[in-house]
Structures are given as C-alpha cells and as structure tokens.
C-alpha cells in the first residue's frame, strides 16, 4: 500500500490535495476528502456482540445499517466520553459504507502533494504503520495522513482468521 501511494504522490507532485482533518486526543489526522461520504453527529449506536472492542456497533444511516468503529479505540489512544463535538465520518470502504468515530472534525485543508512525507519508521502513537500513508509537516502543525481502507481490510482479515480457528 505504501508503495502504491508513494507512486501516486510522486505523480501528483505540485498538485493540490484536499484533506479532511480531524482530531483524536491531541493529535491531528487527515483523510482524503474524496473518500469521505459525509460527516454526521453521533446517533444512537446499537452494540453488536462478539465484535472487536473498537467496533462500537451499528447505526441507522437513513435506512441503511452501517457499522461504526471508534478510531480512538482502534489505535489504542485511550477512551473518551462522546460529547457534542464527536462526529462520525462515513466513508466508503471497499464498496460498503462504514463509520469512523472521531473526537471532532476541524476543517478541510488543501496541501500540495509534495508536502506529504513518508511516515517515520517508528511512531510512538498506536496507529498501525500500514494505516499511515504519510505525514504532513506544516509550520505549526503535524498531520498524519490515514488510509482508513487499510484499517478495515486488516480487521476483516483478522476477524476472518479468528472465525476459522
């Protein structure tokens, strides 16, 4: 994945990329705006039993039932109460909708592709290396670019193997 994105990045040098930036704790993350379907407030979440603890459950998105996961829990960033700033980012992952719970969504930023640097080899935060597709180092902020497709596809694999055991 890292390789594929690297190529993308190289091709896109100088091009502007739009990112949605969001917060998990004190850290700031970003995902490509085109991948985000919508951003909604926390509705009632129905817990789904026998799922990994970071899967909060399912929600009703205008008649569609979609799973939501807490990115905080997913990346082991500690739990936090949901408040009025909490948002669900609904993204299309492998042709299915999925919600990711984040502390808050701040803004859409434009950066040039050349600003994206490969992720540092060792990152202290709990974010899995594979889910991180780059780091954006602007003067007063550090933004971690996430690849959420990677997040869920990894989980799926993990869940599948756990089922077969």
């Amino acid at each position, binding site marked *: 994945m890292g390789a594929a994105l690297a190529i993308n990045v190289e091709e896109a040098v100088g091009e502007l990329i739009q990112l949605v930036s969001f917060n998990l704790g004190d850290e700031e993350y970003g995902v490509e705006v085109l991948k985000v379907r919508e951003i909604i407030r926390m509705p009632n979440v129905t817990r789904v039993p026998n799922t990994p603890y970071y899967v909060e459950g399912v*929600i009703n998105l205008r008649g569609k*039932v979609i799973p939501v996961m807490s990115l905080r829990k997913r990346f082991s960033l500690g739990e936090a109460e949901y408040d009025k700033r909490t948002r669900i980012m609904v993204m299309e992952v492998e042709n299915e909708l999925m919600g990711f719970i984040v502390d808050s969504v701040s803004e859409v930023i434009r950066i040039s592709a050349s600003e994206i640097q490969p992720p540092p080899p060792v990152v202290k935060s709990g974010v899995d290396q594979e889910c991180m597709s780059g780091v954006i180092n602007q003067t007063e902020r550090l933004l971690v670019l996430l690849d959420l497709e990677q997040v869920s596809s990894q989980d799926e694999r993990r869940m599948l193997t756990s089922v077969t055991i």
Partner: protein
Amino acid sequence: MTMEIEDQELLEGFLAETTELLEKLDDDLVTLEKSPSDSDLLNRIFRSIHTVKGASSFLGFELLVKVTHKTEDVLNRLRKGELVVNPEIMDVILEAVDLVKLLVSDIRSGDIKEREVEGTLVKLLPLLSENAAEATVIPAATPQPEVVSAKRGKKKSTTKSEKSAETVVVLQNPVPEAPRVVAPEHAPVALKPVESKNEELADNSTVRVDVKRLDDLMNQVGELVLERNRMIQLNANYQGGENLDVFGGDFGKLTKRVNFVTSELQTQVLKLRMIPVEKVFKKFPRIVRNLARDLGKEVDLRLLGEETELDRSVVDEIGDPLIHLIRNALDHGLESPDERVAAGKSRVGTVVLSAAHEGNQIIISIKDDGRGVDPDRVGKKAVEKGLVTEEQLANMMPREILDMIFLPGFSTKEKASDLSGRGVGMDVVKTNIKKLNGIIDIKSELGKGSEFILKLPLTLAIIQSLLVEVNGEIYSIPLSAVLETLRVEVSEFHTISGKEVLKLRDSVLSLVRLENVFGVTGDYADNGSCYVVVVGVAEKRIGLVVSRLLGQQEVAIKSLGKYLANLAGIAGSTILGDGNVALIVDPVSLIDGREGVSAGRMAA
C-alpha cells in the same frame, strides 16, 4: 445462429413460451401414462409440441425442429389410436422431450452446441412404423450425423434437412446400428439430466405478473400519493399555526391511513414476488415415475395444494430438499410391491406431497404409507457409526432418536445405491431448510408410514419477528422459529452438568441466556422471573432466556455488511420504529453453538 435472429425480442418470447410449455409437458406426459384414454390431455400435449415445432422452425432452429417433428408424429399416431401408450413408448417420448429441453437451454445460453440427436430420433422412428401395415419406415439420411452437423446455422438448409428427415425409405431391417450409438450414452444417466435441466430451464431473471396484480399495485400507489398530499397539507396547516388539537386529531387519522395503505402496498409487492409452489411440484411426477421404475416399486404420487403461493426466493431453494425427501420416501419408505402385499397393504404405495398456508408460514409435507422409520434401527446405526454412545442413546427420547437421521454421515442403508444411502441427503435437507429459517418435523409410525413436515417462512425479505429485551438491549427473534413463549421463575431452572435446562411438559429444554451469548452488561432489576422463548430450527429446540417480551413486529431484514459478516448468533439487523437498529437473532447458529459447532450465518 443467434446472430441471425435480428429480433432479440422474438427469441426471448420464444424461450419464455417454450420453457413454459415444456415445464408443463413432463407432468402431462406422466399423467397421460396413467390415463392413456384422456384425449383432451393427449391433444394438449400434441399442441404443445406442435407449437414448439412451429416456433423453432420459424426461427430456424433445425435440430429442435427435427426432434419435435418426430415426436409430434409419434404423438399424432397415439392420437389417431394407431399406437397405444405404454411405458416403453413413454420412455422414448420423455427422452425426446428431454432432448428438446437440452436444445432449448442451449439456445438460451446462446451457445448452441452440436448435439447428438440421431440416437433419440432413431428410437422414435420404430414407433412411427410399428403396426403400420405396409412396412418399416426409416428416413434415408438418418444414420449419417453429417446431415445435422454440416448444415447447422445456415438458414437455407432448414428446408433441406427437414426434407431429408421426412424422406422415408422402405427397409427390411429396421433400426440399423442405432442402439449401439445410443444405449451407452442415455440409459444409465436417465434421471440426473432431467433434474439439472429442469433447473436450467427455470428462468428466474424475469417475472410474469398478472395484470390484475399490477393494477392493484398501481391503485395502492395512487392511495399513497393521496395520503402524501394530505400530509403536506397537514404540515402546511401546522406551520400556519393551526389549533394543535385539530392538528393532533387529523394527524392521528392520517397515521392510521398511511399505516393501512403501506401495509396493503407491502402485501401487494410481496404478492408480485409470489409464485405457486406448483413450479417446484410439477417436476416430481416425472422424477417419481423414473425412480419407481428404477426401484421396481409401484407408486402413486398425489400432489395437493399446488396452487399455494410462496416467495420466489423460497421456491428456488426448496427444490433440492424436496427431491431428497421424495427419493427417501421411495427408496427407504415404501416397500416393494411384494412386501407390501405381505404386510397386508395394497401393492401400490402412496406418496402425498402437499402444500398449505398456515399463518405466515408455508407447510410442505411429504407423506408415505411405507414402513416408517424404526427408532431402534436408527439408534443402532447411530451407535455403530459412532455418532452417539450407548449411554447417550439410552437417555434419548424416540423423537430425538428420529432426529438423528439428519446427522451428516447417517444412513441406515447397508449399501449406498445410486439413489441414496451415502448419508448426505438428509444433511442437505437440513442445511437447506435451516438456510430458509425453516423447521422440519418427522412423524413416523412403524409399519404405517412416515411424514416429513417442512415449515417455511413465506418470504425472506420481510419477516415477522418477536422483539425481546435483554437487560435493556432490544433484539428481534424471527417469529418463524418461535414455537412458544413462557414466563417462568428463575427458581424453576434446573441444571444438567452445569448447563441450565427447563422442564417443559414432558421434555427437557436446554436454555441459552442471551445476555451471556451477547455479552450484555446492562443492569436489569432481576425480580426472579424472566421469559423463555422456545425456538426451533429444523428438528432442534432450545429456550432463549430474555428479560422482557416487547411484542410482535414485522421487520425488514437489513444486511450488516461484509465487515460484520459471520457473527455468531446474529442473522442481520433491522430498523425499529424509533429509528434505532435492532439485531436479528439467528436461532440456527445459537442452536449449533450449543453443540460446539461454530457456525455463523448471514441473512442477505
């Protein structure tokens, strides 16, 4: 060849019509064998074949024309009374019809293959000559396959090959070298191709809908539009500051009407999806006939309630299990004619296949008057095969013993035959019925016969469900699986080797606490009593312990998506009236889960 047909619509029309005619034909032919003097029936069969012939000649499907033409000739002789229906003639006609089906399915797939039709044709020919005063008639060019192969696909040749087939020559020695070509290919596999071809023939991508139903649907939609307008009006009134009491009253009325209209609409749409069970049933007379002949048994198959309608999704799934059950009834259930006479029964065994509605379920039963299932024999076999131990067997009730025939690998047959005995069949039945959220029941009386009863939901998209609360969380249990609900005191529970059970009349019911299975942590004021929902899937029953029953509701099944697929105990989800999501409990995997089999299942 398809390329030549400019009008694709014409071809589709042809396929639809032909398929319909052919599906009916099998049934008619078998009936004809039983009542050879029924001239109406014979005429109908003749007309069907004739129509197929006419249409295929028009579209230039020569092979089809050839086969249907000869078949028609034979039928014509039957019609004129020059031949009398007997099983041998019927075998040949059925073979010809099978060939026609094969050719039609070739055309449907757009991949028209070279088919060996001469073998069947040659079998038909003697029928055209026998009893004929003059001599034996054989077409000139028949034994040369090139006639067929060389000319395929060329429109021009239609007339030519038809002519060649019709040209007749008087020969002294009938049927030259034909049996040699035919026999090895057709005889042993007589049964199998029939089934698979039937599947292929059934085209499920298009629906034929009664115009009346469509009109009804339109009417309902019209009603709905009216109610919508009414709602917009109400909202305008409300915004305009209408008296709240008046608004409340109007809104209440509107709610009732919308409720009425939508449920009507729902019924209508469901009806559009409904097809008569006849679609599945009608292939059985043919199968039973062949089976009976193969097994040397005499069988009278009776079909009841063929007009019973059920959802197409269910119809598609139910064919296989029924074939297995019918085979079982014939092979295991019914005795040979001599045995029957010795047992004081009539020579001819009876198998009754019936369908009926019962509430929101369809009941299909396969009943035979054969020897019945012997629990002792089943028990002995199960021990022999290592499926249960002697002690386990001793503790089992007769019912539970009978249920063991559904275990994979179980068979009482000493030797596996072509038809049954490998111990796969009943397992397939069980799996299929489970997939449909159905229940299977066995009734058996030794020496008198046995009956298999399938209870299936009418549709798979919308289900009746029982909403229950488990420590504050709401779950939905498919009502088709619910047998009864009980309010019990926790003190009435017993334990057997650490597992909770409940004495329910004369049986012992294993209990599953949903809060444990689903890890529900919420608090619930436990006042010592709770509810037990008895669910049954296929032949098994367990009790689900819940805190409260909330009532019955019709719910639309929503998939949980790939990410949450295969969760044990969860079949899907649904959206409740308040917009919250409730999970649908999957009784199948809960029951299996108790047996230590981890099987997840997903409703689509």
